[in-house]
């Protein structure tokens, strides 16, 4: 229960969400991730640490570099991942519907 709450706290932060979005498509080193943000590098490291502790990110050693990648399985367990996707379309279509209803009245 606690872990679950922590995970949602972890993804409540916009920078951490942006980090998850970045590594969703490819694994990246801490340096590569940090280069996408204006924030100081130790701050980004702290975010990476929190995401790793929550097991949303996994570290993989590749030679001398440590790569971060998304623990998709865990993310799926934590939140039903199809739901945000569905919600995004639902919101879009709701908007379409309300815009076209007004359009009709013109």
């Amino acid at each position, binding site marked *: 229960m606690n872990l679950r709450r922590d995970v949602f706290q972890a993804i409540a932060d916009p920078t951490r969400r942006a980090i998850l979005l970045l590594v969703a498509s490819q694994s990246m080193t801490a340096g590569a991730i940090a280069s996408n943000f204006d924030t100081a590098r130790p701050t980004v490291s702290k975010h990476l640490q929190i995401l790793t502790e929550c097991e949303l990110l996994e570290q993989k050693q590749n030679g001398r570099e440590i790569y971060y990648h998304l623990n998709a399985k865990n993310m799926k367990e934590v939140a039903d991942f199809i739901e945000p996707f569905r919600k995004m*379309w639902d919101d879009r279509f709701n908007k379409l519907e309300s815009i076209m209803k007004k359009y009709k009245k013109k």
Partner: protein
Amino acid sequence: MERKTKIHAEDGKQELVITREFDLPLELLFKAYDEPELVAQWMGTNVLKLENKKHGSYHFETTDPMGNKHHFSGTIHAFVPNQKITRTFEMENTPFPAQLEFLEFEKLTDDTSKLTMQIVYKSIEYRDQMLQLPFAQGINMAHNRIQEITSKLK
């Protein structure tokens, strides 16, 4: 509340189907896809180009809350008013390959209509990645919902 928008994503398939019923006559639903100003409004995007015809193409530019610009584009393969649109879709400057979209528009009653959108991805893995992409917005909403639920528990 009934979920108006449904997603059907079968395990082990490289496609998904989005369906939605609208309280709109078919012609109005289709118009929302046809006119660039309307597309811009409901998609929340800048429409740089929209040639709704066979061999036509489109190009959208969306600005995220962080101020970054994202480009989406594709080619129109079929455009039959009030019936169907077949097109490709690509998120530019991302590792995601283009996807193929089949949109079918149906009349239900004089005032209601239905959209069926079949999206075919390059592989099962890409489809699952698209579904799992933690859309900033989506996560925010999931988080808000959890907060709502947990605040009621207090």
